[in-house]
């Protein structure tokens, strides 16, 4: 049952401003020939280094992020042709504990589903043009990136 992710009949955006329901992604990738499904959920967490983060405001270079997601999933389909993969990234303000990113990968064998899911989330972290502004319990705000750097925020720019 070959399936190309990028030939989805209905184009579902990868970016959303609503809470992400893992069950929806599990349903999207399920199929009778795919017995193993791995799902990854990344959530806004309290970071021991920074003290309590109460929420994160995610922004993106949106058309590029959609295109980059599409490229990542197409590359994953090339690597794991039998896998079916779904992904979402949330934008806007995400409260503590809610999911910022969800990836689901279903495949005939469990190893493929683990490997594909892991590969996609690593590529998302590495390539997706998304930024986060963390709001701490004391009201301070900072830009925080995947390399661990922190910068205090300045005035909000009008258009971004």
């Amino acid at each position: 049952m070959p399936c190309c992710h990028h030939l989805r009949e209905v184009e579902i955006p990868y970016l959303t401003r609503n809470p992400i329901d893992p069950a929806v992604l599990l349903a999207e990738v399920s199929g009778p020939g795919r017995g193993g499904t791995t799902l990854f959920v990344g959530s806004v967490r309290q970071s021991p280094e920074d003290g309590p983060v109460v929420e994160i405001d995610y922004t993106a270079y949106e058309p590029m992020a959609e295109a980059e997601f599409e490229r990542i999933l197409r590359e994953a389909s090339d690597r794991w042709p039998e896998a079916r993969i779904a992904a979402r990234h949330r934008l806007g303000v995400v409260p503590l504990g809610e999911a910022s990113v969800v990836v689901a990968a279903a495949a005939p064998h469990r190893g493929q589903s683990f490997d594909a899911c892991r590969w996609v989330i690593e590529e998302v972290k590495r390539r997706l043009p998304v930024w986060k502004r963390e709001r701490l319990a004391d009201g301070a705000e900072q830009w925080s990136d995947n390399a661990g750097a922190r910068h205090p925020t300045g005035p909000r720019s009008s258009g971004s």
Partner: protein
Amino acid sequence: MTTERPIEIQCRLFARYAEVVGTDRATLHLPPTATVADAVRELRERLPGGRALPERPLVAVNQAHARSTQPLTDGDELALLPPLAGG
């Protein structure tokens, strides 16, 4: 000469970079031989606070990751991307 007609590049800045320079868009006119690195140099010189941008930021051309050596073409969209934080 026709080869000297400048190209127009639409520049976009995001997140902390937009904060640093106080704008998220700029238009550049560059020689037709210009590369990404030339455009970044121009932005750092011309934008108020532009020196706070890194000399070699992460960049995208037409919504795909690009290298600083990539040649630019008239109408290209160049984006300066702060260190990524998705996931």
